[in-house]
């Protein structure tokens, strides 16, 4: 892990990429519509097919972004999971920061002032 002191921030390195490989492989498969449909038909079976561990499966079940990240998920692959759920990056930001979506959008706008 590269040393850093940046709060609330993941430096997605080799350790993360090893830990999250199965979860990210599943999310990468969601580029294809047929795979998204297969996941929606039976989420558990799809997680099994990709070999997710218990922590990853629970995070998927709970739609919990911080837990998905803690389980080694990379945000760019997780975004494809979010696509299935019709969540955009403001929804994800609000969930991770514990804010309402409106408050999160206001935080973004405030950065410009």
């Amino acid at each position: 892990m590269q040393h850093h002191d940046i709060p609330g921030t993941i430096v997605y390195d080799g350790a993360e990429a090893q830990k999250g490989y199965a979860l990210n492989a599943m999310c990468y498969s969601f580029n294809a519509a047929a795979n998204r449909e297969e996941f929606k038909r039976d989420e558990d079976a799809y997680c099994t097919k990709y070999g997710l561990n218990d922590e990853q499966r629970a995070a998927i079940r709970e739609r919990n972004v911080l837990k998905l990240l803690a389980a080694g998920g990379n945000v760019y692959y997780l975004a494809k999971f979010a696509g299935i759920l019709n969540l955009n990056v403001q929804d994800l930001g609000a969930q991770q920061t514990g804010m309402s979506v409106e408050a999160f959008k206001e935080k973004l706008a405030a950065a410009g002032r």
Partner: protein
Amino acid sequence: MAQIVGAIATSHIPAIGKAIAENKQNDPYWKPFFDGYGPALSWLKQARPDVVVMIYNDHGLNFFLDKMPTFAVGAAAQYRSEDEGWGLPVLNSFPGDAALSWHIIEHLVADEFDITSCQDMAVDHGFAVPMNLLFPNAGGKWPVTTVPVSINTVQHPLPTPLRCWKLGRAIGRAIESYPKDLRVVVFGTGGLSHQLDGTRAGFINKKFDLYCLDTIVRDPEALTKLSVIDLVREAGAQGVEFLNWITMRGALLGNVSQIHRNYHIPISNTAGATLVLENRTAAQSQAA
């Protein structure tokens, strides 16, 4: 000989592609961002490019963690736009120029950049959104050929700003040694500051972005003193896409002047930015 006439740096987030698909250019939320493209389009029209060299990053369409090249160069007759999983329209394929690609690849490797060459390559929003933004009337018939250069900004260790600057220099030398008379524009895409993940999600740093926008024009080598961790800290975890901009700037070997810039917060979770740079050889500068 091929000539790099200039460069355009631009945001590339998927939300822009969605706004284009939904014709939201004049929507109050989007207007301050899209208005920044008028001068870029005017400049591009008079620049008459034959080729766009696209410096961007893949976000999990063409590359996965199984094989993650630090630098990859496309060498195909065409590059596919594909479903990325969240409903952006798939665009017509982008024409390549395989002969120019192989010329660049040969020069880069001779210059000690051991890049990955790709004869089969899908290009995601990092490539497609800038094409859509800057050729809005193409109607799927892209007026230029393209050479994709993909930089790993997904999995650390990422290449350093200094390495990206040097890669840009080498790309510039490679293009300018190509014997065919081609007018080339380099695009650098992504950024500016943003962070999608972690409890710091929503981080935007206007002060740092404005420093980058100023410095990349007049003193780009100052940016090569930054580390990747500096970029993560100051620009956000995904703001590291600024590496694409540094590479683009490196490819401009002549006298560089700013034609236009726009900066607007927020577009989606990012600071949106556009920068148009003209590149003149010493001889052109004297004649002008």
